[in-house]
């Protein structure tokens, strides 16, 4: 039979050598926990298709998976395979990155500041300024003789970047009177050729266009598709296996499907597969 405990301190006494072991054990425990969480972070990274670390956290949050305790490990994760294949990890470019590039290009292409030779030089009128103004060609458009060919081409050029559902017919593009005012402005926005300018509105609606340019425009699912061939030569394809893939992308939802194929002969069959897969028929928006 055991004696009764008279003094708690005496009973709770731990020898010095055992205390040291406990400290080491705790460190060992923490180290193992760190390794375990690192491994979990790596699994999440690879299972999500080697996306960047911030994207992995977003994905987990979107799926409702608790990841607060893993966040620092996920954000600090380094993948050897990702390091070995450098390049962009996402096909979208951030607005801040775009703005930085634009600012950089402007600073490089800007004309050097003229040195002031004599006081009052700037106030002198430059005789060549009037000659530098652009003028429209006097040749008229064959379809609409009231408009010059320069204006007509400028309208078509600007509207190729617009949403096709807005302009179902080319003749409508030609006859849009709103654009005629804007074509008088010689500074045609070169960025309109880019994808990011899709849906940009020209003319009197330019103010709203600038506001919309910063926010992404989502078209309804299945209304705006993009399709293109990809070549697998850089991935190392073999001649008797698939060499190409067709990528069909729905612009509004960013949903895309890739169809590997041996030849590029039948995109229609693959397009029908896309329709079958998504269960959506094309919708024509006016």
């Amino acid at each position, binding site marked *: 039979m055991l004696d009764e405990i008279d003094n708690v301190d005496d009973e709770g006494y731990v020898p010095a050598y055992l205390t040291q072991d406990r400290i080491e054990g705790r460190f060992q425990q923490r180290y193992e926990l760190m390794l375990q969480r690192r491994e979990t972070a790596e699994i999440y990274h*690879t299972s999500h*298709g*080697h996306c960047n670390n911030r994207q992995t956290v*977003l*994905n987990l*949050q*979107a*799926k409702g998976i608790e990841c607060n305790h893993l966040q620092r490990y996920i954000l600090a994760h380094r*993948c*050897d395979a990702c390091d*070995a294949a450098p*390049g*962009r*990890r*996402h*096909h*979208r*470019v951030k607005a801040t990155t775009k703005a930085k590039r*634009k600012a950089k290009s402007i600073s*490089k*292409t800007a004309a050097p500041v003229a040195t002031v030779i004599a006081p009052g030089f700037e106030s002198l009128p430059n005789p060549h300024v009037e000659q530098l103004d652009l003028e429209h060609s006097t040749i008229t458009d064959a379809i609409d003789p009231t408009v010059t060919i320069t204006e007509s081409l400028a309208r078509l050029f600007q509207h*190729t970047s617009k949403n*096709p559902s807005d302009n179902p017919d080319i003749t409508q593009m030609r006859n849009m009177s709103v654009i005629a005012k804007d074509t008088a402005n010689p500074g045609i926005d*070169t*960025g309109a*050729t880019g*994808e*990011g300018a899709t849906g940009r509105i020209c003319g009197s609606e330019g103010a709203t266009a600038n506001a919309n340019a910063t926010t992404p425009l*989502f078209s309804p*699912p299945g209304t705006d*598709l*993009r*399709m*293109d061939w*990809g070549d697998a030569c*850089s*991935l*190392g*394809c*073999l001649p008797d*296996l698939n060499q190409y*893939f067709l990528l069909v*992308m*729905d*612009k*509004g*939802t*960013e*949903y*895309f499907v*890739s169809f*590997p194929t041996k030849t*590029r002969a039948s*995109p229609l069959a693959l397009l029908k597969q896309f329709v079958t*897969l*998504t*269960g*959506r*028929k*094309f919708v024509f928006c006016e």
Partner: protein
Amino acid sequence: MRIDGAKEFQSEEIREYCADNNVVLQLVVAYNHTMQARVEGAIGCVEIIIDLPFGFPINNIISLGCVKQHSRTSLLHANKPTRFWDDATKDFSIKKVYLWASTDTQGKLQTSHDRMQPAFFGTYKTVAVPFGSRVIAQLPREHRLVKNGSFGDRFIEGTYLYSDSATPCIWMFSIALQ
């Protein structure tokens, strides 16, 4: 539907199909990748940047790899031969669509799959598996690969390829069956 001027896209059957389904085909200007930048960027075969300003230094040009880039990484990580590129590509497409979330205009985290419902019949368990990882699948007793229903092996070993889009199953590469 926006397409480039590839010969296959301008065939008569595609035009008829589009006419029947009220699809407006929009051909972009030839050799102008920026007008197809969204899809070219997704493919990763463009060697220029979206909205690349004129005069941008050539050294800073990087390729827009999304599908190709990640397929290459998956192949590297899984130590798979390059003949599996198509499986890696399909796998990444599914993972990207199903798992990658982005903030929509209302500030809500959504995936492309959520926006495109119904688009895919896989589940998180079938999609969120690293490409090329070792998979063991159980076989039913009646399966043709099972030789002895009572005492023989009733499993098959292989590597994960991609999730099936029509059923909550996965495609795997069997090591035994090649």
